[in-house]
């Protein structure tokens, strides 16, 4: 009995020692040190659904700016049509890139509106948590990006995103999505979709800069986000969102 306990303690000791040596070795490796850059969420995107006219300029500009393959969309416009009997139909022909045509409805229309959608660049992005290879991440400014060189195209993130904002690019075979035009923002421009929106239904800017177009809206307006129950805490916020919008 005594002998067994001694053996047990010995083995435990070796295991602990071996484990600590292993961890120490790992932390000494280049690149694995914890960098001092803390993530901040400096930007916000605001969509005013009451201003959107569904012209599709944003979708078209996004596709050109980011070379988005045909039939895939980093941003798209949904048209909600709610009939008086309560039926809700949603359509988005070609993502809204070529505008919308009038539709024949089964009954009188109670209300109808456009809802532009894009990546929400969440504070707690599901898509990043599920990536098994560290190919998607949050930048220090709060953008959720995909590292094309590291992505293996497993599409876990596509399934994890509750907003359907991601897809697998048929050319690169890697995950693809809206970057909030990261390259443009870093170069001092605004996003492509915001720059061509004729009604200022889309706004993007820094949350901490009083000069930015979103600053006062964030302070004064009552804003909503899509699917708050998921806990993702989106940073794309909506004005005038209807209860039927999913």
């Amino acid at each position, binding site marked *: 009995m005594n002998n067994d306990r001694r053996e047990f303690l010995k083995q435990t000791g070796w295991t602990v020692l071996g484990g600590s040596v292993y961890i120490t070795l790992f932390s000494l490796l280049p690149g694995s040190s914890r960098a001092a850059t803390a993530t901040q969420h400096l930007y916000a995107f605001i969509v005013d659904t009451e201003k959107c006219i569904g012209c599709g300029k944003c979708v078209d500009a996004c596709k050109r700016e980011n070379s988005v393959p045909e039939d895939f969309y980093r941003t798209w416009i949904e048209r909600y049509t709610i009939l008086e009997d309560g039926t809700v139909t949603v359509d988005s022909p070609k993502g809204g890139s070529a505008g*919308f045509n009038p539709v024949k409805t089964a009954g009188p229309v109670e209300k109808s509106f456009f809802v532009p959608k894009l990546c929400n660049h969440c504070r707690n992005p599901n898509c990043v948590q599920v990536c098994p290879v560290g190919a998607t991440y949050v930048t220090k400014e709060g953008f959720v990006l995909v590292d094309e060189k590291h992505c293996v195209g497993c599409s876990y993130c596509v399934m994890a995103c509750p907003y359907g904002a991601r897809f697998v690019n048929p050319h690169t075979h890697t995950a693809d999505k809206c970057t909030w035009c990261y390259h443009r923002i870093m170069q001092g421009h605004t996003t492509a979709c915001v720059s061509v929106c004729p009604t200022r239904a889309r706004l993007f800017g820094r949350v901490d800069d009083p000069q930015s177009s979103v600053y006062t809206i964030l302070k004064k307006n009552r804003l909503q986000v899509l699917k708050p129950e998921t806990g993702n805490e989106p940073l794309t916020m909506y004005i005038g969102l209807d209860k039927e919008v999913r």
Partner: protein
Amino acid sequence: MKHYNHIIRCILLLVIVVIGFFIARGALVPESFGVHGTYTYGYHRGDSAAEQADRYALYQGSTKCITCHAEQSLLWQPGRHAAVSCESCHGNWQAHNNNTSATIEKDNSVETCMLCHRKLNARPSTFPQIPEFGRHLADQDEQLQQGMLCVDCHDPHDPM
């Protein structure tokens, strides 16, 4: 002590495997790969963001356009289309800049205007919309012929 040699061999083999693993890992994992920010959201190749930030921006904004096209900008800036960027209708600046002799996108068709101004239920009711182009022509005071375009009466840079 009879089997001492076996243990030595095992340990030696283990040491070789461990060293091999770390050498391979060092060679395969990029220098900047690691935790940047929090472990949950920041475990990635650090250089990736900088690489993406380098991409050229095609849309450069109206300020770039009006440096050359002052005539149009004088019409456009005080007009009702002032909020509409040049690139909304004329395509991105870079496409024009790549070959300045190429004319910019200029589509005078009724469809171009109707993209925004066609009457749709989903559009805000305060936004100017045309229910039917034929009716709109017939409603005007002047005698308008078939085949007329929006731009025959309305200057797209300063519509009224």
